[in-house]
């Protein structure tokens, strides 16, 4: 990547930087699953109250946000409602695509939906890269407050894609994939893990950007966020003590069928210190493996599925969001906490 290309890659619509007191807060919302006709408005209420209380410097939607809009105007209207907490306060925000991204709007392609996010909101800093798979691949540099020309932290987003039918020749069998050839020999009824993966050209793009940033800015800590998790999330679940796991795995780990190698790639590049993802609404766990903190950001959307239970309170027990708080002089030891929606909005016991 040339220096010009890199400069272009690092541009953001709004400046993002550590505050004068040397802190920077990122608040993740995932799986809002919101519709134009409202639905359960506690999703928005919880977002509003969390933002009010935590005053984040950057809000990231980790996929599966707006759904069911018919026209472009409907989609804009819908996003306007749910981005109001950020837009009204002037907080930069960005999205990564989830597997339901294409369900956001009937009339629009994924590229056109991306365009709506990029063009129609003052503080939405989402971007994309031409020529590689996926739409929401980008990096957001967060600048230092002491030396405003230096990047203190990078935020990478990679698009984990839609569903697996986009991958040629692959079908799933009981959570594993097999080729068309062997599918014939297998029992019917396979639907789990039906997602695309981060493709190799996306990894090569990340590697290139990260290496190029290192040349001009030195090794720069980064966090990465995606909708579906890397396969290595299993290591956290299976080794809770060793990974110092906090939070829980209430449901299975559902992710793309093939291991894209994204985890090995970020380990080898050495800049990513935190890797965050949504998609499994009821998982809130975070742990550390190979020096990288990996964690779920939960689901803030009351219209999304929850845990099974008879009461509203049981069903929505794990609704929430994840807050990361960075201090510029000790970025590696940032704090990460799961915020429960039930502390902000009312849950019912019947």
């Amino acid at each position, binding site marked *: 990547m040339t220096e010009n290309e890199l400069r272009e890659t690092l541009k953001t619509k709004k400046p993002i930087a550590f505050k004068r007191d040397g802190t920077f807060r990122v608040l993740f919302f995932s799986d809002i699953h919101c519709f134009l006709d409202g639905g359960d408005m506690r999703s928005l209420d919880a977002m509003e109250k969390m933002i009010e209380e935590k005053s984040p410097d950057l809000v990231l939607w980790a996929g599966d946000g707006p759904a069911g809009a018919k026209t472009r105007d409907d989609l804009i209207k819908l996003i306007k409602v749910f981005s109001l907490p950020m837009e009204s306060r002037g907080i930069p925000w960005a999205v990564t695509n989830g597997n339901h991204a294409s369900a956001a709007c009937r009339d629009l392609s994924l590229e056109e939906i991306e365009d709506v996010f990029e063009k129609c909101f003052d503080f939405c800093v989402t971007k994309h890269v031409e020529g590689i798979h996926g739409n929401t691949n980008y990096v957001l540099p967060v600048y230092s407050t002491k030396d405003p020309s230096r990047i203190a932290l990078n935020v990478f987003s990679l698009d984990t894609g839609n569903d697996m039918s986009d991958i040629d020749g692959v079908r799933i069998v009981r959570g594993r994939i097999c080729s068309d050839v062997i599918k014939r020999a297998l029992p019917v009824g396979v639907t789990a893990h039906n997602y695309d993966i981060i493709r*190799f050209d996306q990894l090569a793009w990340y590697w290139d950007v990260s290496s190029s940033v290192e040349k001009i800015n030195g090794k720069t800590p980064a966090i990465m966020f995606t909708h579906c998790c890397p396969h290595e999330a299993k290591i956290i679940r299976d080794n809770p003590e060793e990974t110092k796991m906090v939070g829980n795995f209430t449901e299975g780990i559902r992710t793309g069928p093939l291991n894209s190698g994204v985890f090995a790639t970020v380990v080898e590049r050495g800049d990513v210190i935190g890797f965050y993802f949504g998609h499994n609404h009821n998982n809130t766990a975070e742990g550390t493996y190979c020096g990288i903190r990996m964690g779920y950001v939960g689901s803030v959307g009351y219209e999304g599925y929850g845990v099974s239970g008879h009461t509203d309170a049981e069903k929505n027990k794990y609704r929430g969001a994840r807050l990361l708080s960075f201090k510029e002089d000790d970025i590696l030891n940032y704090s990460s906490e799961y915020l429960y929606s039930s502390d902000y909005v009312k849950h019912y016991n019947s």
Partner: protein
Amino acid sequence: MSITQNELKRILSNKFRLSFGTRGTFRILLFSDFHSHYKHQDPRTYEAFEKIIDDKNPDLVYLMGDLPGGPVKPAEAVEMLSALSRPMDKRGIPWTLVFGNHDDSICRGMPMDRIEKLMEKKCPNCMIKNYGKKIHGYSNHAIPVYRSESDDSISFILYGLDAGRDISAMNEDYELNGDIIEFLSAPKRLTARRRFDIVRFDQVIWYWELSKAVETMNGKTPALVMTHSGVQELRVLGDFPKNLDVDGELAEEIKVGAINSGLFTAGFQRGDVIGFYCGHNHVNTGEGKYCGIRFGYAGSIGYDAYGTKKPHSDRERNRLRGARMLTFDRDDIINYRSEYIYASDYVAPVIEVK
């Protein structure tokens, strides 16, 4: 990294130009895990090695790593390599190698790049070379097989990638403080044992770019990827033997590198790889098909290496010794034949003393 056409020419030019001959077939014999010292070895290793070569008359011999049984003294390294290459040298058969996790013992104390150079120099028929210092590993090389002696179109290509040595290099490179190793003792593990390094991302990029450059020049070209320890996806062979039409045995745990390098997924996405072959697990001889790609083990030819868990019977312990033969038909590359050759068909078992 992108590979220019000039650089591509340099990568594809080897000591020998391999091509289909008049008979229209091309045979490759894969031998792995010799683990033998040329002086103190069970003679059956070399006996079987020579007899199989004689019987099958291959066009290329591909060694899948782990040659020495233990660290070889520098004064003896050349002799060991000569003993190893003699069967091919005598018959004028080209051969090559990807390094295994024990191959830093080919010459005790000698760095891998010098071991690699030593083999290039001292073994006249050995095609090993290395792409260079820009990427990890030492036997990263590509061997094209041309359609005929006069035809310059490539029928298929063999990518050799160095899967590295033990995990300590990764721990040091990425300051992992033993994080990966710690999980060896963890109660439930994602895969079996993970004490080995992996094909690194820069090697995967190298394969990816090389494959694209080959496609530009030659069209989509079927490829085999050879590594010593295999890709993590091998474990589906063990999990779904029936569904994957596994032929052969998986008599031990599938042992692979510490983390998933994404090599399989990259090969799958490039769409040129038709087979992944590896050694490392001596008593796995299976081959199956996953996502349209054949995955196979080359077994182990070394009688001094560990065998099956039947320590009291020589016949049992060495039951699965052997090699893998791949036979390509010029007009139907994709449906090449792959067969496991049992060493026991060539050498007699030792008479047991009770």
